[in-house]
Protein backbone atom coordinates (compact mmCIF):
# COMPACT_ATOMS: atom_id res chain seq x y z
CA UNK A 1 0.00 0.00 0.00
CA UNK A 2 2.65 2.38 1.14
CA UNK A 3 4.70 1.48 -1.87
CA UNK A 4 2.03 2.10 -4.47
CA UNK A 5 1.11 5.41 -2.96
CA UNK A 6 4.76 6.50 -2.96
CA UNK A 7 5.03 5.62 -6.62
CA UNK A 8 1.80 7.42 -7.27
CA UNK A 9 2.99 10.49 -5.42
CA UNK A 10 6.32 10.42 -7.17
CA UNK A 11 4.82 10.21 -10.61
CA UNK A 12 2.33 12.90 -9.74
CA UNK A 13 5.18 15.08 -8.60
CA UNK A 14 6.99 14.50 -11.82
CA UNK A 15 4.03 15.68 -13.81
CA UNK A 16 3.60 18.63 -11.48
CA UNK A 17 7.19 19.70 -11.72
CA UNK A 18 7.05 19.56 -15.50
CA UNK A 19 4.04 21.81 -15.42
CA UNK A 20 5.70 24.15 -12.98
CA UNK A 21 8.85 24.41 -15.04
CA UNK A 22 6.59 25.41 -17.89
CA UNK A 23 4.95 28.00 -15.64
CA UNK A 24 8.27 29.50 -14.69
CA UNK A 25 9.32 30.04 -18.24
CA UNK A 26 8.83 33.60 -19.37
CA UNK A 27 6.46 33.42 -22.29
CA UNK A 28 8.73 35.02 -24.82
CA UNK A 29 6.48 36.54 -27.38
CA UNK A 30 8.55 35.77 -30.41
CA UNK A 31 6.20 36.14 -33.30
CA UNK A 32 5.98 33.07 -35.42
CA UNK A 33 3.60 30.42 -36.46
CA UNK A 34 1.19 29.16 -33.88
CA UNK A 35 0.33 25.50 -33.67
CA UNK A 36 -2.01 24.33 -36.38
CA UNK A 37 -1.62 27.33 -38.64
CA UNK A 38 -2.17 27.11 -42.39
CA UNK A 39 0.86 28.24 -44.36
CA UNK A 40 0.35 30.79 -47.12
CA UNK A 41 2.58 31.64 -50.03
CA UNK A 42 3.35 34.91 -51.67
CA UNK A 43 2.69 34.25 -55.35
CA UNK A 44 5.22 36.05 -57.47
CA UNK A 45 3.71 37.04 -60.83
CA UNK A 46 5.54 35.83 -63.90
CA UNK A 47 8.31 38.22 -64.85
CA UNK A 48 8.51 39.92 -61.43
CA UNK A 49 11.91 40.02 -59.73
CA UNK A 50 12.32 38.22 -56.38
CA UNK A 51 10.56 40.12 -53.54
CA UNK A 52 12.23 41.54 -50.42
CA UNK A 53 12.78 38.89 -47.71
CA UNK A 54 9.76 40.37 -45.92
CA UNK A 55 8.46 37.09 -44.57
CA UNK A 56 11.77 35.48 -43.62
CA UNK A 57 11.12 36.11 -39.92
CA UNK A 58 7.36 36.47 -40.21
CA UNK A 59 6.08 33.19 -41.66
CA UNK A 60 2.98 33.81 -43.76
CA UNK A 61 -0.11 32.01 -42.49
CA UNK A 62 -3.80 32.16 -43.27
CA UNK A 63 -4.43 33.07 -39.61
CA UNK A 64 -1.82 35.84 -39.54
CA UNK A 65 -3.14 37.23 -42.81
CA UNK A 66 -6.76 37.18 -41.59
CA UNK A 67 -5.78 38.94 -38.37
CA UNK A 68 -3.95 41.58 -40.41
CA UNK A 69 -6.98 41.98 -42.62
CA UNK A 70 -9.27 42.57 -39.66
CA UNK A 71 -6.82 45.08 -38.17
CA UNK A 72 -6.60 46.93 -41.49
CA UNK A 73 -10.37 47.48 -41.39
CA UNK A 74 -10.52 48.05 -37.59
CA UNK A 75 -11.81 51.47 -36.50
CA UNK A 76 -10.48 50.88 -32.98
CA UNK A 77 -7.00 51.58 -34.26
CA UNK A 78 -8.03 55.26 -34.49
CA UNK A 79 -8.98 57.71 -31.71
CA UNK A 80 -12.63 58.22 -32.71
CA UNK A 81 -12.98 54.90 -34.56
CA UNK A 82 -13.62 56.70 -37.88
CA UNK A 83 -10.22 56.25 -39.42
CA UNK A 84 -9.16 52.67 -39.89
CA UNK A 85 -6.35 52.13 -42.39
CA UNK A 86 -9.03 51.39 -44.96
CA UNK A 87 -10.58 54.87 -44.61
CA UNK A 88 -7.61 56.29 -46.47
CA UNK A 89 -6.64 53.14 -48.35
CA UNK A 90 -9.75 52.10 -50.29
CA UNK A 91 -9.74 48.87 -52.25
CA UNK A 92 -11.76 50.20 -55.19
CA UNK A 93 -9.03 52.85 -55.57
CA UNK A 94 -6.24 50.23 -55.44
CA UNK A 95 -5.97 51.17 -51.72
CA UNK A 96 -5.37 54.89 -52.29
CA UNK A 97 -7.81 57.68 -51.33
CA UNK A 98 -10.00 58.33 -54.34
CA UNK A 99 -10.55 61.94 -55.43
CA UNK A 100 -8.77 63.46 -52.43
CA UNK A 101 -5.48 65.26 -52.98
CA UNK A 102 -4.89 64.88 -49.23
CA UNK A 103 -6.76 62.39 -47.02
CA UNK A 104 -8.96 63.19 -44.03
CA UNK A 105 -7.77 62.16 -40.60
CA UNK A 106 -8.69 62.73 -36.96
CA UNK A 107 -10.38 66.00 -35.93
CA UNK A 108 -11.01 67.34 -39.45
CA UNK A 109 -7.35 67.43 -40.26
CA UNK A 110 -5.71 66.56 -43.55
CA UNK A 111 -2.65 64.46 -44.18
CA UNK A 112 0.40 66.25 -45.53
CA UNK A 113 0.63 64.05 -48.58
CA UNK A 114 -1.47 62.08 -51.03
CA UNK A 115 -2.23 58.52 -49.92
CA UNK A 116 -0.53 56.17 -52.38
CA UNK A 117 -2.09 52.94 -53.59
CA UNK A 118 -0.97 49.85 -51.68
CA UNK A 119 0.15 46.90 -53.76
CA UNK A 120 3.38 45.06 -54.56
CA UNK A 121 4.72 46.40 -51.26
CA UNK A 122 6.85 43.25 -50.94
CA UNK A 123 8.99 44.67 -53.75
CA UNK A 124 9.55 48.02 -52.03
CA UNK A 125 12.63 48.72 -49.96
CA UNK A 126 11.37 51.98 -48.45
CA UNK A 127 7.98 53.52 -47.81
CA UNK A 128 6.29 56.92 -47.92
CA UNK A 129 6.97 59.59 -50.50
CA UNK A 130 10.23 60.54 -48.79
CA UNK A 131 11.37 56.96 -48.10
CA UNK A 132 11.48 57.69 -44.35
CA UNK A 133 10.15 54.27 -43.37
CA UNK A 134 12.61 51.42 -43.86
CA UNK A 135 10.43 48.34 -43.31
CA UNK A 136 6.81 47.49 -44.06
CA UNK A 137 6.28 46.17 -40.53
CA UNK A 138 6.91 49.55 -38.94
CA UNK A 139 4.94 51.61 -41.47
CA UNK A 140 1.60 51.39 -39.55
CA UNK A 141 3.19 53.05 -36.48
CA UNK A 142 3.25 56.32 -38.37
CA UNK A 143 -0.47 56.74 -39.20
CA UNK A 144 -1.54 55.21 -35.86
CA UNK A 145 0.44 57.75 -33.83
CA UNK A 146 0.11 60.82 -36.10
CA UNK A 147 -2.22 63.42 -34.59
CA UNK A 148 -3.70 64.23 -38.01
CA UNK A 149 -4.36 60.59 -38.92
CA UNK A 150 -5.42 58.00 -36.35
CA UNK A 151 -4.17 59.97 -33.30
CA UNK A 152 -3.55 57.05 -30.94
CA UNK A 153 -0.67 55.71 -28.90
CA UNK A 154 0.46 52.15 -29.53
CA UNK A 155 -0.35 51.23 -25.93
CA UNK A 156 -3.93 52.51 -26.29
CA UNK A 157 -4.40 50.45 -29.43
CA UNK A 158 -3.08 47.32 -27.71
CA UNK A 159 -5.35 47.91 -24.71
CA UNK A 160 -8.39 48.25 -26.96
CA UNK A 161 -7.54 45.02 -28.77
CA UNK A 162 -6.97 43.18 -25.47
CA UNK A 163 -10.39 44.31 -24.26
CA UNK A 164 -12.15 43.17 -27.41
CA UNK A 165 -13.07 39.50 -26.99
CA UNK A 166 -12.65 38.82 -30.71
CA UNK A 167 -8.93 39.55 -30.74
CA UNK A 168 -7.15 37.31 -28.20
CA UNK A 169 -8.36 34.14 -29.99
CA UNK A 170 -7.25 35.55 -33.33
CA UNK A 171 -3.79 36.35 -31.96
CA UNK A 172 -3.65 32.85 -30.52
CA UNK A 173 -4.62 31.28 -33.83
CA UNK A 174 -1.97 33.28 -35.64
CA UNK A 175 0.90 33.35 -33.16
CA UNK A 176 0.28 30.56 -30.66
CA UNK A 177 -0.68 32.57 -27.56
CA UNK A 178 -3.41 35.04 -26.69
CA UNK A 179 -0.83 37.62 -25.72
CA UNK A 180 -1.24 40.79 -27.74
CA UNK A 181 1.80 42.96 -28.34
CA UNK A 182 2.86 45.50 -30.92
CA UNK A 183 5.19 43.11 -32.70
CA UNK A 184 2.44 40.61 -33.42
CA UNK A 185 0.03 43.33 -34.48
CA UNK A 186 2.57 44.79 -36.87
CA UNK A 187 3.61 41.43 -38.27
CA UNK A 188 -0.03 40.55 -38.94
CA UNK A 189 -0.62 43.85 -40.75
CA UNK A 190 2.55 43.23 -42.73
CA UNK A 191 1.30 39.80 -43.78
CA UNK A 192 -1.95 41.29 -45.04
CA UNK A 193 -0.34 44.17 -46.89
CA UNK A 194 2.56 42.13 -48.21
CA UNK A 195 0.11 39.71 -49.83
CA UNK A 196 -1.49 42.51 -51.83
CA UNK A 197 0.04 41.64 -55.17
CA UNK A 198 -1.15 43.28 -58.34
CA UNK A 199 0.15 41.59 -61.47
CA UNK A 200 -2.91 40.77 -63.50
CA UNK A 201 -3.51 43.85 -65.63
CA UNK A 202 -4.10 43.64 -69.37
CA UNK A 203 -0.41 44.54 -69.70
CA UNK A 204 0.48 41.32 -67.85
CA UNK A 205 -1.89 39.24 -69.96
CA UNK A 206 -0.22 40.62 -73.09
CA UNK A 207 3.20 39.76 -71.65
CA UNK A 208 1.99 36.23 -70.96
CA UNK A 209 0.58 35.90 -74.47
CA UNK A 210 -3.00 35.77 -73.23
CA UNK A 211 -4.13 39.05 -74.82
CA UNK A 212 -2.99 41.55 -77.43
CA UNK A 213 -2.60 45.32 -77.27
CA UNK A 214 -4.83 47.55 -79.38
CA UNK A 215 -2.99 49.66 -81.94
CA UNK A 216 -3.20 52.69 -79.65
CA UNK A 217 -1.90 50.72 -76.65
CA UNK A 218 0.93 49.29 -78.72
CA UNK A 219 1.94 52.73 -79.90
CA UNK A 220 1.62 54.07 -76.34
CA UNK A 221 3.84 51.27 -75.07
CA UNK A 222 6.56 52.28 -77.51
CA UNK A 223 6.30 55.92 -76.38
CA UNK A 224 6.37 54.79 -72.76
CA UNK A 225 9.52 52.73 -73.24
CA UNK A 226 11.10 55.66 -74.93
CA UNK A 227 10.12 58.49 -72.57
CA UNK A 228 9.04 57.15 -69.20
CA UNK A 229 10.61 53.75 -68.57
CA UNK A 230 13.93 54.99 -67.17
CA UNK A 231 12.17 56.01 -63.97
CA UNK A 232 9.05 53.85 -64.23
CA UNK A 233 10.50 50.53 -65.54
CA UNK A 234 8.30 47.44 -65.94
CA UNK A 235 7.25 45.14 -64.40
CA UNK A 236 6.86 47.21 -61.20
CA UNK A 237 6.76 50.55 -63.04
CA UNK A 238 9.04 52.20 -60.52
CA UNK A 239 12.77 52.02 -59.96
CA UNK A 240 12.23 52.90 -56.26
CA UNK A 241 14.50 55.93 -56.60
CA UNK A 242 13.87 59.51 -55.46
CA UNK A 243 13.66 62.28 -58.07
CA UNK A 244 12.67 65.87 -58.48
CA UNK A 245 10.26 66.14 -61.42
CA UNK A 246 10.33 69.94 -61.35
CA UNK A 247 7.10 70.63 -59.49
CA UNK A 248 6.61 74.10 -58.01
CA UNK A 249 6.89 74.14 -54.21
CA UNK A 250 3.49 74.42 -52.51
CA UNK A 251 4.00 77.40 -50.17
CA UNK A 252 1.58 76.04 -47.56
CA UNK A 253 2.84 72.45 -47.37
CA UNK A 254 6.45 73.48 -48.03
CA UNK A 255 7.46 69.84 -48.35
CA UNK A 256 11.18 69.35 -48.92
CA UNK A 257 10.75 65.64 -49.71
CA UNK A 258 13.64 63.25 -49.39
CA UNK A 259 15.83 65.96 -47.87
CA UNK A 260 13.73 65.93 -44.70
CA UNK A 261 15.08 62.42 -44.12
CA UNK A 262 18.65 62.61 -45.42
CA UNK A 263 19.33 66.31 -44.65
CA UNK A 264 21.25 66.32 -47.95
CA UNK A 265 20.56 69.51 -49.97
CA UNK A 266 20.92 67.42 -53.13
CA UNK A 267 17.74 65.60 -52.07
CA UNK A 268 15.67 68.79 -51.88
CA UNK A 269 12.24 68.26 -53.52
CA UNK A 270 12.96 64.67 -54.46
CA UNK A 271 10.11 62.21 -54.00
CA UNK A 272 9.78 58.51 -54.55
CA UNK A 273 8.99 57.41 -58.10
CA UNK A 274 5.51 55.89 -57.73
CA UNK A 275 4.42 52.76 -59.53
CA UNK A 276 2.14 53.41 -62.48
CA UNK A 277 0.19 50.20 -62.02
CA UNK A 278 -3.52 50.88 -61.39
CA UNK A 279 -2.83 54.54 -62.09
CA UNK A 280 -6.29 55.08 -63.54
CA UNK A 281 -7.79 54.04 -60.20
CA UNK A 282 -5.75 56.29 -57.92
CA UNK A 283 -6.48 59.87 -58.94
CA UNK A 284 -5.48 62.52 -57.99
CA UNK A 285 -1.73 62.34 -58.60
CA UNK A 286 1.61 63.53 -57.33
CA UNK A 287 2.95 63.54 -53.77
CA UNK A 288 0.44 66.24 -52.78
CA UNK A 289 -2.29 65.14 -55.16
CA UNK A 290 -2.10 68.35 -57.18
CA UNK A 291 -2.91 66.73 -60.53
CA UNK A 292 -6.51 65.71 -61.10
CA UNK A 293 -5.89 63.69 -64.25
CA UNK A 294 -3.26 61.68 -66.05
CA UNK A 295 -3.51 64.25 -68.83
CA UNK A 296 -2.46 66.96 -66.39
CA UNK A 297 0.55 64.90 -65.27
CA UNK A 298 1.65 64.33 -68.84
CA UNK A 299 1.22 68.03 -69.60
CA UNK A 300 3.48 68.79 -66.67
CA UNK A 301 6.19 66.59 -68.20
CA UNK A 302 5.64 68.27 -71.58
CA UNK A 303 5.68 71.91 -70.57
CA UNK A 304 5.58 72.40 -66.80
CA UNK A 305 8.96 71.22 -65.53
CA UNK A 306 10.69 73.89 -63.43
CA UNK A 307 14.47 73.73 -63.43
CA UNK A 308 16.14 74.02 -60.04
CA UNK A 309 19.50 72.54 -58.97
CA UNK A 310 17.93 69.19 -58.10
CA UNK A 311 15.54 68.82 -61.05
CA UNK A 312 16.22 65.46 -62.68
CA UNK A 313 18.63 65.80 -65.64
CA UNK A 314 16.29 63.66 -67.75
CA UNK A 315 13.50 66.19 -67.36
CA UNK A 316 15.37 69.46 -67.75
CA UNK A 317 14.08 69.95 -71.28
CA UNK A 318 10.68 68.48 -70.48
CA UNK A 319 9.35 65.42 -72.32
CA UNK A 320 8.18 66.64 -75.71
CA UNK A 321 5.16 64.80 -77.09
CA UNK A 322 2.43 65.44 -79.66
CA UNK A 323 -1.23 65.41 -78.59
CA UNK A 324 -1.70 62.16 -80.46
CA UNK A 325 1.22 60.55 -78.64
CA UNK A 326 -0.29 61.73 -75.37
CA UNK A 327 -3.54 59.93 -76.20
CA UNK A 328 -1.74 56.72 -77.12
CA UNK A 329 0.38 56.90 -73.98
CA UNK A 330 -2.80 57.28 -71.94
CA UNK A 331 -4.27 54.21 -73.64
CA UNK A 332 -1.21 52.24 -72.66
CA UNK A 333 -1.40 53.46 -69.04
CA UNK A 334 -5.03 52.25 -68.92
CA UNK A 335 -3.77 48.75 -69.70
CA UNK A 336 -2.02 48.81 -66.30
CA UNK A 337 -5.33 48.60 -64.42
CA UNK A 338 -5.67 45.27 -62.62
CA UNK A 339 -9.43 44.83 -62.35
CA UNK A 340 -9.08 41.54 -60.46
CA UNK A 341 -7.00 43.16 -57.71
CA UNK A 342 -9.50 45.88 -56.82
CA UNK A 343 -12.28 43.34 -56.28
CA UNK A 344 -10.16 40.52 -54.86
CA UNK A 345 -12.26 39.01 -52.06
CA UNK A 346 -9.19 38.22 -49.96
CA UNK A 347 -8.61 41.92 -49.42
CA UNK A 348 -12.17 43.14 -48.80
CA UNK A 349 -13.60 44.19 -45.44
CA UNK A 350 -14.06 40.98 -43.39
CA UNK A 351 -17.03 42.40 -41.46
Amino acid sequence: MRRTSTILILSLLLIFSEMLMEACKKTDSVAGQGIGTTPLQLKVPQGFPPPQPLFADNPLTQEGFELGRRLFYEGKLSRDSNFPCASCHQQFAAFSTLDHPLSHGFNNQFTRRNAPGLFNLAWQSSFQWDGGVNHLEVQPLNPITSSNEMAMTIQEVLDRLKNDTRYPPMFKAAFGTEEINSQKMLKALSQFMGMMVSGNAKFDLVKRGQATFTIAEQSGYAIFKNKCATCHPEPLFTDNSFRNTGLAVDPVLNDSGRMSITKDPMDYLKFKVPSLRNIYKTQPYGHDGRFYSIGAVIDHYRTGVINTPTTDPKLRNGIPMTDEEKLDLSSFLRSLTDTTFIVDKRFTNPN
Partner: protein
Amino acid sequence: MDILRSRSSKVLLLATSLFLALSCKKDKSLETGKSRVSFRFENSAQGIPLQLEKKYTNPFGEDYTVTTLKYHISDITISDSSKNISREKTCCHLLDASDSTSLHFDAQLDEISFDRVSFIIGVDSLYNVSGAQTGALDPVHGMFWTWNTGYIMAKLEGESSVSSAPVSRFQYHIGGYAGSVATQRKVTLTFPGGRSYSLKADQPLTMIIDVNISKWFRSAHDLPIASQPLVMTPGPLAMQYADNYACLFTVKEVQP
Protein backbone atom coordinates in the same frame (compact mmCIF):
# COMPACT_ATOMS: atom_id res chain seq x y z
CA MET B 1 -5.47 4.40 6.40
CA ASP B 2 -6.71 7.87 7.23
CA ILE B 3 -3.42 8.71 8.83
CA LEU B 4 -1.63 7.45 5.81
CA ARG B 5 -3.76 9.50 3.51
CA SER B 6 -3.33 12.67 5.44
CA ARG B 7 0.36 12.04 5.82
CA SER B 8 0.82 11.34 2.17
CA SER B 9 -1.10 14.45 1.24
CA LYS B 10 1.18 16.43 3.53
CA VAL B 11 4.16 14.86 1.85
CA LEU B 12 2.63 15.69 -1.47
CA LEU B 13 2.15 19.29 -0.45
CA LEU B 14 5.64 19.58 0.90
CA ALA B 15 7.23 17.91 -2.05
CA THR B 16 5.20 19.96 -4.46
CA SER B 17 6.35 23.21 -2.94
CA LEU B 18 9.89 21.89 -2.95
CA PHE B 19 9.61 21.05 -6.61
CA LEU B 20 8.09 24.42 -7.29
CA ALA B 21 11.04 26.12 -5.67
CA LEU B 22 13.52 23.80 -7.34
CA SER B 23 12.06 23.92 -10.79
CA CYS B 24 11.90 27.70 -10.73
CA LYS B 25 15.43 27.93 -9.50
CA LYS B 26 16.60 25.53 -12.12
CA ASP B 27 14.94 27.49 -14.89
CA LYS B 28 16.65 30.69 -13.84
CA SER B 29 19.94 28.94 -13.23
CA LEU B 30 23.14 29.74 -15.00
CA GLU B 31 24.54 27.99 -18.00
CA THR B 32 27.69 26.11 -17.15
CA GLY B 33 30.76 28.30 -17.16
CA LYS B 34 28.61 31.36 -16.59
CA SER B 35 28.04 33.65 -13.65
CA ARG B 36 26.01 36.75 -13.02
CA VAL B 37 26.89 40.42 -12.92
CA SER B 38 24.15 42.59 -11.46
CA PHE B 39 24.28 46.01 -13.07
CA ARG B 40 22.92 48.95 -11.12
CA PHE B 41 22.80 52.21 -13.01
CA GLU B 42 22.51 55.25 -10.79
CA ASN B 43 21.52 58.46 -12.53
CA SER B 44 22.95 61.51 -10.80
CA ALA B 45 23.24 65.26 -11.14
CA GLN B 46 25.60 67.53 -9.22
CA GLY B 47 26.86 64.52 -7.32
CA ILE B 48 23.52 63.45 -5.87
CA PRO B 49 21.00 60.87 -7.09
CA LEU B 50 18.85 62.30 -9.87
CA GLN B 51 15.29 62.97 -8.88
CA LEU B 52 12.77 63.67 -11.59
CA GLU B 53 11.30 67.19 -11.56
CA LYS B 54 13.84 68.44 -9.03
CA LYS B 55 15.73 71.60 -9.94
CA TYR B 56 19.44 71.35 -10.81
CA THR B 57 22.01 73.66 -12.34
CA ASN B 58 24.11 72.53 -15.28
CA PRO B 59 27.78 73.47 -15.87
CA PHE B 60 26.68 76.63 -17.72
CA GLY B 61 24.73 77.82 -14.71
CA GLU B 62 21.44 77.03 -16.43
CA ASP B 63 18.68 75.74 -14.19
CA TYR B 64 16.85 72.62 -15.33
CA THR B 65 14.56 69.82 -14.23
CA VAL B 66 14.40 66.39 -15.82
CA THR B 67 11.00 64.89 -16.65
CA THR B 68 12.15 62.04 -18.89
CA LEU B 69 15.44 60.20 -19.11
CA LYS B 70 15.68 56.97 -21.07
CA TYR B 71 18.59 55.27 -22.78
CA HIS B 72 19.39 51.99 -24.44
CA ILE B 73 22.32 49.90 -23.24
CA SER B 74 23.38 46.99 -25.42
CA ASP B 75 26.21 44.62 -26.22
CA ILE B 76 27.70 44.39 -22.71
CA THR B 77 31.14 42.80 -22.51
CA ILE B 78 33.71 42.26 -19.79
CA SER B 79 37.33 41.77 -20.81
CA ASP B 80 40.96 42.29 -19.93
CA SER B 81 44.09 43.32 -21.78
CA SER B 82 44.92 39.70 -22.66
CA LYS B 83 42.48 37.57 -24.59
CA ASN B 84 39.72 37.23 -22.01
CA ILE B 85 36.38 38.50 -23.24
CA SER B 86 32.76 37.63 -22.56
CA ARG B 87 29.70 39.18 -24.20
CA GLU B 88 26.14 39.20 -22.87
CA LYS B 89 23.72 37.38 -25.15
CA THR B 90 20.70 39.59 -24.43
CA CYS B 91 20.58 42.25 -27.08
CA CYS B 92 19.33 45.35 -25.33
CA HIS B 93 18.21 46.97 -22.16
CA LEU B 94 16.08 50.08 -21.92
CA LEU B 95 16.80 52.13 -18.83
CA ASP B 96 14.06 54.54 -17.82
CA ALA B 97 14.56 56.95 -14.92
CA SER B 98 10.82 56.84 -14.14
CA ASP B 99 10.94 53.06 -13.60
CA SER B 100 13.61 52.24 -11.03
CA THR B 101 13.32 48.51 -11.73
CA SER B 102 14.63 49.12 -15.25
CA LEU B 103 17.90 50.51 -13.86
CA HIS B 104 18.90 47.16 -12.34
CA PHE B 105 19.39 44.01 -14.35
CA ASP B 106 21.42 40.85 -14.31
CA ALA B 107 23.74 39.87 -17.13
CA GLN B 108 25.02 36.32 -17.62
CA LEU B 109 28.71 36.38 -18.42
CA ASP B 110 31.53 33.84 -18.60
CA GLU B 111 33.68 32.93 -15.61
CA ILE B 112 36.72 35.00 -16.57
CA SER B 113 38.95 37.55 -14.95
CA PHE B 114 38.48 41.06 -16.28
CA ASP B 115 39.54 44.62 -15.65
CA ARG B 116 37.07 46.56 -17.79
CA VAL B 117 33.46 46.62 -18.87
CA SER B 118 32.16 47.88 -22.21
CA PHE B 119 28.72 48.51 -23.58
CA ILE B 120 27.07 50.41 -26.35
CA ILE B 121 24.71 53.26 -25.69
CA GLY B 122 22.08 52.71 -28.32
CA VAL B 123 20.73 49.94 -30.51
CA ASP B 124 22.68 48.09 -33.19
CA SER B 125 21.81 49.23 -36.71
CA LEU B 126 20.54 45.74 -37.59
CA TYR B 127 17.60 46.13 -35.20
CA ASN B 128 16.85 49.50 -36.75
CA VAL B 129 16.15 48.02 -40.16
CA SER B 130 14.58 44.64 -39.37
CA GLY B 131 10.94 45.55 -38.81
CA ALA B 132 8.86 45.14 -35.66
CA GLN B 133 10.82 44.21 -32.51
CA THR B 134 9.66 43.34 -29.01
CA GLY B 135 10.90 43.50 -25.40
CA ALA B 136 13.18 46.47 -24.71
CA LEU B 137 12.80 47.43 -28.37
CA ASP B 138 9.00 47.48 -28.42
CA PRO B 139 7.83 50.78 -29.94
CA VAL B 140 5.38 51.19 -27.02
CA HIS B 141 8.32 52.48 -25.00
CA GLY B 142 8.32 55.68 -27.04
CA MET B 143 11.88 55.22 -28.21
CA PHE B 144 11.11 54.63 -31.90
CA TRP B 145 10.76 57.28 -34.58
CA THR B 146 7.92 56.55 -36.94
CA TRP B 147 8.48 59.22 -39.61
CA ASN B 148 12.17 58.45 -40.16
CA THR B 149 12.17 54.96 -38.77
CA GLY B 150 14.82 53.95 -36.28
CA TYR B 151 15.43 53.95 -32.56
CA ILE B 152 15.97 56.94 -30.33
CA MET B 153 19.17 55.88 -28.57
CA ALA B 154 18.76 58.25 -25.65
CA LYS B 155 16.14 60.76 -24.64
CA LEU B 156 16.36 63.62 -22.16
CA GLU B 157 13.42 65.95 -21.61
CA GLY B 158 12.70 68.57 -19.02
CA GLU B 159 12.22 72.26 -18.37
CA SER B 160 14.60 75.16 -18.05
CA SER B 161 14.02 78.89 -17.66
CA VAL B 162 16.61 79.52 -20.38
CA SER B 163 14.77 77.45 -22.99
CA SER B 164 13.22 79.44 -25.81
CA ALA B 165 10.86 76.58 -26.68
CA PRO B 166 7.17 76.62 -25.69
CA VAL B 167 6.55 76.20 -21.92
CA SER B 168 10.30 76.35 -21.33
CA ARG B 169 10.72 72.75 -22.36
CA PHE B 170 13.81 71.09 -23.68
CA GLN B 171 13.65 67.85 -25.62
CA TYR B 172 16.65 65.90 -26.77
CA HIS B 173 15.74 62.82 -28.79
CA ILE B 174 19.05 61.50 -29.98
CA GLY B 175 19.07 58.93 -32.76
CA GLY B 176 20.37 58.03 -36.20
CA TYR B 177 21.69 54.52 -36.70
CA ALA B 178 23.99 54.38 -39.72
CA GLY B 179 26.83 56.06 -41.57
CA SER B 180 27.66 59.65 -40.78
CA VAL B 181 24.69 60.09 -38.45
CA ALA B 182 25.18 56.94 -36.33
CA THR B 183 24.64 57.86 -32.67
CA GLN B 184 25.53 54.54 -31.04
CA ARG B 185 28.53 55.04 -28.79
CA LYS B 186 30.75 52.40 -27.30
CA VAL B 187 31.86 53.06 -23.74
CA THR B 188 34.72 51.22 -22.04
CA LEU B 189 35.14 51.68 -18.32
CA THR B 190 37.85 50.56 -15.91
CA PHE B 191 37.30 50.09 -12.20
CA PRO B 192 38.20 52.21 -9.15
CA GLY B 193 41.87 51.76 -8.32
CA GLY B 194 42.44 50.01 -11.67
CA ARG B 195 41.38 46.76 -10.04
CA SER B 196 40.58 43.55 -11.82
CA TYR B 197 38.02 40.93 -10.83
CA SER B 198 37.37 37.25 -11.35
CA LEU B 199 33.86 36.20 -12.10
CA LYS B 200 33.01 32.76 -10.65
CA ALA B 201 29.78 30.83 -10.74
CA ASP B 202 29.43 30.87 -6.96
CA GLN B 203 30.59 34.49 -6.65
CA PRO B 204 28.36 36.80 -8.67
CA LEU B 205 29.28 40.49 -8.70
CA THR B 206 27.37 43.74 -8.54
CA MET B 207 28.56 46.67 -10.61
CA ILE B 208 27.36 50.14 -9.70
CA ILE B 209 27.60 52.61 -12.54
CA ASP B 210 27.17 56.32 -12.05
CA VAL B 211 25.41 58.19 -14.84
CA ASN B 212 26.22 61.86 -14.44
CA ILE B 213 23.59 63.87 -16.29
CA SER B 214 25.48 67.16 -15.91
CA LYS B 215 27.85 65.88 -18.57
CA TRP B 216 24.99 65.61 -21.07
CA PHE B 217 25.37 69.36 -21.49
CA ARG B 218 29.12 69.74 -21.16
CA SER B 219 31.80 67.11 -21.73
CA ALA B 220 33.05 66.33 -25.25
CA HIS B 221 31.12 69.36 -26.52
CA ASP B 222 29.60 72.46 -24.96
CA LEU B 223 25.84 72.17 -25.47
CA PRO B 224 23.99 74.73 -23.37
CA ILE B 225 20.21 74.47 -23.24
CA ALA B 226 19.88 78.09 -24.33
CA SER B 227 21.58 77.35 -27.67
CA GLN B 228 19.25 74.52 -28.68
CA PRO B 229 16.39 73.34 -26.51
CA LEU B 230 15.10 70.93 -29.19
CA VAL B 231 16.96 68.18 -31.02
CA MET B 232 14.66 65.65 -32.61
CA THR B 233 16.38 64.50 -35.80
CA PRO B 234 19.51 62.62 -36.77
CA GLY B 235 22.35 64.87 -37.90
CA PRO B 236 25.51 66.71 -36.79
CA LEU B 237 23.95 68.09 -33.61
CA ALA B 238 22.66 64.67 -32.55
CA MET B 239 26.21 63.38 -33.13
CA GLN B 240 27.54 65.94 -30.62
CA TYR B 241 25.00 64.90 -27.99
CA ALA B 242 26.00 61.30 -28.62
CA ASP B 243 29.65 62.19 -28.00
CA ASN B 244 28.51 63.74 -24.75
CA TYR B 245 26.38 60.86 -23.54
CA ALA B 246 29.35 58.59 -24.02
CA CYS B 247 30.95 60.58 -21.16
CA LEU B 248 28.18 60.13 -18.59
CA PHE B 249 29.26 56.76 -17.27
CA THR B 250 31.78 55.75 -14.58
CA VAL B 251 31.98 52.60 -12.50
CA LYS B 252 31.50 53.69 -8.92
CA GLU B 253 31.95 50.36 -7.25
CA VAL B 254 32.20 46.63 -7.86
CA GLN B 255 30.75 44.61 -5.00
CA PRO B 256 31.01 40.91 -4.28
